[in-house]
């Protein structure tokens, strides 16, 4: 294998993006668990409502604000992280439920 081939292979390896990761967040009581996540763009958060009451994924942070709607007991929903930055996730129904998410590139 010549030097050109070695260089090409190394460059190719560097260019391969890391595999997207999935983070599991459970919702129960007045807590998201875990309460904080450090992720990268392309990663996904899977929210699972393990409670016997409805919860919600609501982001009130500017430039990331969104609402996934009411999530009934036993149901799941996914959020793909499409941009960098940090934001809070709250439950519309339970004011003290808080998850902080940091998204790197």
């Amino acid at each position, binding site marked *: 294998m010549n030097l050109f081939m070695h260089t090409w292979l190394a460059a190719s390896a560097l260019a391969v993006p890391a595999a997207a990761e999935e983070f599991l967040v459970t919702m129960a009581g007045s807590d998201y668990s875990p309460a904080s996540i450090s992720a990268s*763009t392309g990663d996904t958060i899977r929210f699972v409502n393990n409670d016997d009451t409805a919860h919600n994924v*609501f982001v*009130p*942070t*500017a*430039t990331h*604000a*969104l*609402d*996934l*709607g*009411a999530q009934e007991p036993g149901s799941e929903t996914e959020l793909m992280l*499409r*941009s960098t930055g940090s934001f*809070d996730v709250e439950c*519309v*129904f*339970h*004011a003290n439920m808080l998850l902080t998410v940091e998204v790197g590139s």
Partner: protein
Amino acid sequence: MKRSSISVAILLGVLGAAVMAGPDEVKFPENYQTEFVNYLDVDRYDRKRVRRMYISAEALETAIPGEPLPDGTVLIMEDHDARLGADETLQFDDAGRLIAEEAVGNIFVMEKNSAWSTDNGNWDYAWYLADGTPRPEATFEGCFSCHASRAERDFTFTAWKFQSDRSN
């Protein structure tokens, strides 16, 4: 004596009606798209909508982070359909946000007036159609009950937090 009691009751009833604002008290803010500030958009994935949030410019300027919003604050939530692809899936812009279609749907207004006393402090709500006319047979129990969960933020989901976040 009986007459006095009746008179007092009537008077109290009138006063009570005066401080309990109804939806008709919250007027449609003409020209809000140019005179208010669109401080935040909420992507509603579940409803395939984008909700544009506006605040009256004076309120944005005078609000103190961490404190209740100023008397006279008007907040607007303006509904837009989100752009869908041919397969009816949500379309995203380069920043990863939903793309709002031009047409305006419902327009929800909440206004704070210290002369009003409601279940949510001094806030009252109104629901208008895109042409500025009140939505017929609109009900507001949902507005009051949902916003009540954010009493610690002056009954707002995004405006109080926006002020707080931008001060950090």
